[in-house]
């Protein structure tokens, strides 16, 4: 117990110590968070009228970000699977960072849902037993279960491993491997559940498609690893943590495969919507070509599709993908393109036209952008703190004073 306390305080100490630049970064995140908090107080006081949403487009930027971030969190499994189960040593250094990404993404996703609520102070109504949990009918209750469960798993597994390393021990795989296997299935479940949340609504033909779940998975397993490549690349370039080029290459291969599948699904959707357009294609028509003179998303979605296409082609060509200076910008492009496609490009057109055929557009308000920025800063902060402590333990720089670190401290 004392070791546990020491582990936590040492971890925190490590997380909040560093160079002046590191503190500048933390300060920047804190001010962003405070600004977002202020914007949220404004929203809490005056209601959701301060957002760009309306009865016609009743979900907007918040829920778009939520959906996308669930995908990012699910993608951590791409690192978990080979590392813990397939014993691929290349990944083992990256996996703790991947899980830190998952935790931060989940925290952000949960925050985005919370700020979207009309009555956040009544959210205790969702607690099973205390409130009225409409399970299994409501897919939203499924999402509550799987997201919180996944958060727990992704906190627990790295915690156990780091805690053991801190004590100079190698954890017995039997103690954590079952949870790892569970988390692999769980990752798929969180994203399928989130897709079903939309796909289960016959009122919205744009979402009411059996392809939505698989498409969510494909785009998540392209976008998520692309982000992790960028983070690992950052750690590698600044010599914070020794990441081998081989790890990045393997991740890039996963990203490429998923991006290709994602494009095939996109093509399949476009064919279905536009070869013989019916009323059910109206939302897609709005998204890609505009409807009744309204086309807020048209240029953005075309840009995203083209960037997605180019990025996938670049990734597909081996000599290009293997050059890190090409890989990194391509990953940025791919990540951005998927963010647009699966964020605003998925949520907003579902509401346009309305079930009665009315076209009312949506633009996020400044308050929404500020709140979103605050949540982003929170997520980045969580990731920074978690990864800082994890890297220190894994490199042997931080361990219990009475034990010998597993791996000798590296020169960095």
């Amino acid at each position: 117990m004392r070791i546990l306390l020491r582990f936590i305080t040492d971890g925190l100490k490590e997380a909040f110590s560093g160079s002046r630049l590191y503190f500048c970064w933390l300060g920047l995140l804190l001010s962003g968070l405070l600004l977002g908090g202020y914007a949220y107080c404004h929203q809490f006081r005056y209601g959701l009228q301060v957002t760009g949403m309306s009865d016609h487009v009743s979900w907007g930027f918040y829920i778009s970000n939520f959906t996308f971030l669930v995908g990012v969190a699910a993608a951590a499994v791409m690192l978990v699977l080979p590392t813990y189960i397939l014993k691929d040593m290349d990944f083992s250094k990256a996996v703790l960072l991947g899980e830190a990404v998952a935790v931060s993404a989940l925290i952000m996703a949960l925050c985005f849902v919370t700020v979207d609520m009309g009555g956040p102070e009544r959210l205790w109504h969702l607690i099973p037993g205390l409130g009225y949990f409409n399970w299994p009918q409501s897919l939203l209750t499924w999402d509550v279960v799987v997201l919180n469960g996944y958060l727990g798993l992704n906190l627990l597994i790295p915690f156990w491993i780091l805690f053991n390393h801190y004590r100079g021990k190698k954890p017995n795989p039997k103690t954590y491997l079952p949870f790892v296997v569970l988390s692999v299935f769980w990752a798929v479940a969180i994203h399928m559940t989130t897709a079903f949340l939309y796909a289960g609504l016959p009122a919205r033909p744009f979402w009411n498609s059996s392809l939505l779940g698989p498409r969510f998975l494909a785009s998540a397993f392209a976008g998520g690893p692309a982000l992790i490549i960028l983070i690992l690349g950052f750690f590698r370039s600044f010599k914070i943590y020794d990441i081998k080029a081989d790890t990045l290459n393997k991740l890039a291969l996963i990203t490429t495969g998923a991006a290709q599948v994602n494009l095939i699904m996109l093509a399949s959707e476009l064919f279905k919507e536009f070869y013989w357009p019916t009323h059910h294609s109206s939302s897609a028509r709005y998204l890609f070509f505009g409807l009744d003179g309204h086309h807020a998303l048209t240029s953005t979605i075309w840009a995203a599709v083209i960037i997605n296409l180019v990025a996938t082609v670049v990734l597909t060509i081996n000599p290009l993908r293997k050059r890190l200076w090409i890989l990194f910008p391509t990953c940025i492009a791919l990540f951005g393109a998927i963010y647009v496609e699966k964020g605003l490009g998925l949520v907003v057109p579902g509401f346009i036209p309305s079930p009665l055929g009315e076209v009312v557009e949506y633009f996020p308000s400044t308050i929404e952008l500020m709140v979103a920025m605050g949540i982003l800063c929170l997520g980045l902060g969580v990731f920074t703190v978690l990864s800082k402590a994890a890297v220190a333990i894994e490199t042997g720089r931080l361990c219990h004073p009475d034990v010998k670190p597993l791996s000798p401290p590296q020169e960095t």
Partner: protein
Amino acid sequence: MVKGLAVGAAAIGVGAGVMASGTITEQDQKEREMSGDEFDGYFKKNYRVMTESERQATIARFELKARERYSKAIHMSGSLAEAGVLFGYAFNLSRCNGSRKCVQACVEENNQDRATDMQYIRMIEMEKGTFDVEHGTADYDHVEVPDGKFFFGTQCHQCENPPCVKVCPVGATWKENDGIVVIDYDWCVGCRYCQAACPYFARRFNWQEPSIADEEVNPDQHILGNQVRSKGVMEKCTFCIQRSREGQNPACVEACPTGARIFGNLLDPESEIRNILANKKVFRFKEELGTEPKFWYFMD
């Protein structure tokens, strides 16, 4: 900035401020009672699982709150569904002239927010020769009925198989035994999943604190119906539950100048609505979705 934060914090910690007061003045006493009230209200159960006495206490509390808020006597009813009653509605497409008298009557009856001009009923003007709501318009502004047009009125269809009820994560909306889909305004968390799930665009959200002038508030209220809502919760047409459960027609039916709206008990073989279902060719909007609306359309 500090003010904003303070307000947010105060709203979260309901009643916490009362603990800190020193000498007790009359004002304090009143505030203390109010806060206790708020506190009870905050931790009350979902209305549908309340016992009868808990319901009565809740109704009484709301009545008191409404009286404090508006300078007139508010009567809050909690009347239950009667056995042998299942409400249904029929809309005569041949008769409606698009006057929107129903819309106005609905707003006045049901205490909708005036600031955002919230309306439950949506009238869509369409060209004759087609039945395509996407080509219709809901924002026409003429009094005379133009040639070659007809009007299609929509509101909550009180589905027998309501998607909004299925998706609500906290069970804040449900179907009563007389077929009316209602909302516990105090239980709703404002996630708006029901709004996304409704194929009839029937649900409305309070994007801000609703405002109604004192003299315009309808004092005859129902706890599951037209009681004045607060910000951040859903609301919708309840077939004027405060009227229909007292044997009256909904306000829209009363207000219709052409008799295009028919309301009644589907379980009563002598009712006008049963007569229409038996003798007219009727149809339901988006019937293919399997929602089983209790709202029919017909033509003379």
